C-alpha cells in the first residue's frame, strides 16, 4: 500500500450558481488501493465540501453510487482507481437531469418501475405454508432478482436517452422477474403494459445495459425472452 498522486476531473453543477455543468480539476493523493468513492470522499472531506454525490452501503448492494468514470458506468464504491490509472474523469449518469454535481434526478426512473406492477399478483388461494417452487423454476428469475436499481443500465441505453417515455431496461427486467415467476398470475396484465412501442419493442438489443450492469445481469437476454413471451401471449 502506497500513496499515489492522481488527477481528477469532475463535472460540477451547482444549481442557482452555474448556467451549465463544467469541469473542475483536482490534484490529490490517495492510497493506491483507493476506490472511486474513496477519491470522492477525499475531495469532499478535505478539499471541497460543496461536492455532492450519493453513496451509502459502500459494498455494492445499495445502488446509490452509480456514475460515469472515464466513460463507463460503474458503482463508485466497488471500483478501484487502478482500473483507470492516475487520470480520472468523473461525471453523473447520462440521460437524467442533474440535480447537483454527480446527483441526478431518479424520480422518473422509479416511476417507471411502478408502471409495470412490480409485485406478485396471485389469483389462487394462498397456501398455509410456502408456495412450492422448484429449483428450476427459481432459476428462471434468480439472476434478475439481483438488480439493485442503480440505473447504470438505463443511463447506458441509447434507446432511453432520446425517449423519456421508454420503460427502459431496469423496469423491463423487473417485468421479466415477475412474468417468469412460477407463483405469479399477473403475466397478462404486465405483458400488455410492456407490449408497447415504449415497452419491450423500444429495446434494440444494443447490449449496453448488460455491459454497464455492475451485477453482470444478462439484461438483454431477459428482455429478449420477455419479447418472445409477449409474442407467444398474443398468438
Amino acid at each position, binding site marked *: 500500500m502506497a500513496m499515489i498522486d492522481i488527477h481528477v476531473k469532475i463535472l460540477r453543477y451547482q444549481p442557482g450558481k452555474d448556467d451549465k455543468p463544467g469541469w473542475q480539476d483536482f490534484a490529490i493523493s490517495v492510497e493506491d488501493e483507493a476506490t472511486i468513492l474513496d477519491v470522492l470522499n477525499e475531495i469532499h472531506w*478535505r478539499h471541497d465540501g460543496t461536492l455532492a454525490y450519493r453513496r451509502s452501503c459502500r459494498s455494492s448492494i445499495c445502488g*446509490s453510487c452509480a456514475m460515469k468514470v472515464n466513460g463507463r458506468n460503474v458503482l463508485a464504491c466497488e471500483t478501484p482507481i487502478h482500473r483507470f490509472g492516475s487520470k480520472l474523469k468523473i461525471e453523473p449518469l447520462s440521460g437524467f437531469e442533474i440535480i447537483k454535481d454527480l446527483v441526478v434526478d431518479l424520480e422518473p426512473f422509479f416511476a417507471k418501475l411502478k408502471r409495470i406492477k412490480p409485485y*406478485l399478483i396471485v389469483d389462487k388461494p394462498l397456501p398455509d*405454508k*410456502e408456495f*412450492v417452487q422448484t429449483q428450476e423454476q427459481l432459476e428462471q428469475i*434468480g439472476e434478475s432478482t439481483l438488480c439493485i436499481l442503480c440505473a447504470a443500465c438505463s443511463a447506458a441505453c441509447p434507446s432511453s436517452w432520446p425517449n423519456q417515455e421508454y420503460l427502459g431496461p431496469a423496469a423491463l427486467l423487473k417485468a421479466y422477474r*415477475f412474468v417468469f415467476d412460477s407463483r405469479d398470475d399477473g403475466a397478462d396484465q404486465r405483458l400488455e403494459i410492456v407490449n408497447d412501442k415504449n415497452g419491450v419493442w423500444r429495446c434494440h438489443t444494443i447490449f449496453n445495459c448488460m455491459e454497464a450492469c455492475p451485477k453482470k445481469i444478462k439484461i438483454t437476454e431477459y428482455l429478449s425472452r420477455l419479447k418472445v413471451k409477449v409474442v407467444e401471449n398474443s398468438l
Partner: protein
Amino acid sequence: MKIEEARKYHKIDAVIVGAGLAGLRAALEVAKSGLTAAVITKVYPTRSHSGGAQGGIAAALANVSEDSLESHMADTVKGSDYLADQDIIERFVNEALKTVYEFEHMGVPFSRTEDGRINQRPFGGHSAPRACFAQDITGHVLLHTLYEQCLQHNVLFFNEFQVLSLLLKDDVARGLVAWDIRAGGLHIFHAKAVLLATGGYGRAWKVTSNAHANTGDGVALVLEAGLPLEDMEFVQFHPTGLYKHGILLSEAARGEGAYIVNDRNERFMKTYAAAKMELAPRDVVSRAEQTEINEGRGIGGQDYVYLDLRHLGRDKILSRLPQIYDLALNYLKVDAIREPVPIQPTAHYSMGGIPANVRTEVIKDAAGSVVKGLYTAGEASCLSLHGANRLGTNSLQDAATFGRIAGVHMTEFCKKNAFSDLPGKPLETAQGKIDRLWGGGKERHAPIRLTLQENMTKTMGVFRNQDDMLKMLGVIKELQERYQKVGVDDKGQAFNLDLIEALELENLLGFSEVIVEGALARKESRGAHFRSDFPKRNDGDWLRHTLAWRRSGKIVLDFSKAVVIYPQYQPQERKY
C-alpha cells in the same frame, strides 16, 4: 405557530422514519388498513441498509431438519447472554413463521430445497438450520419485495429527507420536522403516530460493516428529546469483516462450512468453543479472533486472520455465496475459490437503542410509562430482543416482525385518536441546527468524525477497559466542544451533502457519549460488552438493563429496569 414558515406542511396519520425492513413493513400494515402512511427516508428505500444483510432470516420452519419454537427461543435467550427480555423473545418466535410465509407469498425468491420448499442453512448460535435464505442476498430481496408491496398499496414516500427534530409535548408525539435533501427547506409532518425505524449506530466506528447512512439518527433524536436510550453499550462486532474495509462477509460462509484460521493455519475456535467451532455466536468468535491477533497469531503477526472457503469448492461458493466471492475479489483482489480471505472483527449491530415495550411503544422510564403515539422497531429499537448479543438472522426477522407489530398498533392508535396540536414554534429546533452550521466557524465536520471513529475503534471494540474508556470520554467531550464551532462550506439548498454530514456528526457525538458512559458503568462482561478489567459476567449486580438520559448536558444512568426472565430460562453459564 407559523406554519407558513415551512415550505411544506403535511398532515398524515402515520409517519414512519426509515425505509428499511422495519419501516416498510410497518408502513405496509398501516396503508393496507386504509389510513395514510408516509415513509420519510434519507436514501431511496431500496438503498436502506437492510439490503446489506446477507445470510438469512430466522424461523423454525423445520424444512431441512427437526426444529421448534422452544429451541429458537432457548437459543436466542442464551445468545443474548440472558439480558434479553423473554416476553419479547416469546412473541418474536411465535410470529417468525408467519413473517417468513408472508414474505414468500409476496414473492421473495427464497432458495429452495430439492422438494421446492424454502431452504434453510445453519447459523451461529442456532441449534438447527434455521436461516431461511436467498443465496447470500437475503436482505436485498426482502427489502426490494417490501418496497414493491408498498408501491402497490400506495404508501407515500418522502425520499431523501433528513429528520431534524421530533415534535413532542406532554409525552405525546405530534410529528416531526425534516429537511428536504434534494431541494432544500424544512417540512413539517403533523402525525398521529410516529415510528422511528432509523436503523443502527455503527457509523461511530471506523472499522464497520455499516453504511454511511447508519448514523443512529432516530436514537439521537430521542436522546435530544429528553427521553432515555437503553443498553447502548452493547454493540456487536462481526467476526468476518473484510480486512481494512470492515465490509460484511456473511456468516453464511461459515454456515456453509467455511473455516477461520490463524497464522499457523489452525482452526483456533477449537480452543474457544470446541462444540460449535466457527458457528459459535458472533461475540464469542470475535473475541477469539481478537485474542489470536493480540497474542501475535494474526496472519504474519498482523491484525487479521483468514476466512477459508476453499474446501467448499467452486460450485458451492458461486451458487450459495456469490456476493461474498465478488466482495473479496473486488475489494481485496482475493479469489476465494483459490485463496483464503483476510478478515477482522467489524462494528456491526446495535443491540441497544430506543426502549420500547412489546407493542413497540416507546417508553420513557424504567416503569415502562409510554410516550403516546411514538413507536420504534428494528435496529433503532431496544425491546430488548437481542440482549447483550444478537444471533445472526434474528435481525431481519426482528425488523420485519416488529415492523408489522408496530404497524398494527399504530393503526389501532390512529383509529382511536384525533390529531394532537403541534407544539409552539415547531420549526425552532430544526432551523436552529441549520442556521448554526451555515453561520458556523472554522471547524469542519470531517476531521472531527474521523477522530471519533478512529478512537471508538481503538477503545470501544471487542475488548474494553476503564483507562481506555475514560480517555475516550475525554475525546468525545473535546470533539463536542469543537463541534460547536463547525461550519459548512456549502451554503446551497439543493443536495447539500456537507450540511447532512455535519448534522449526522452531531448525532454520532451525542449517542457515543452514552455508549461510553454505559460501558464504563457496567463493570462486568456480558455478550458483546467485554471488559478486560471485569472479565466475568455478574448477574448479582448487572442482570439489569441500562437506561440513559441526557439531562442538563450530562448523561444520567439508571439500572432499575429489570430483565424479564421466565422460570424455564434461568441464567446459566454460557458455553458453546
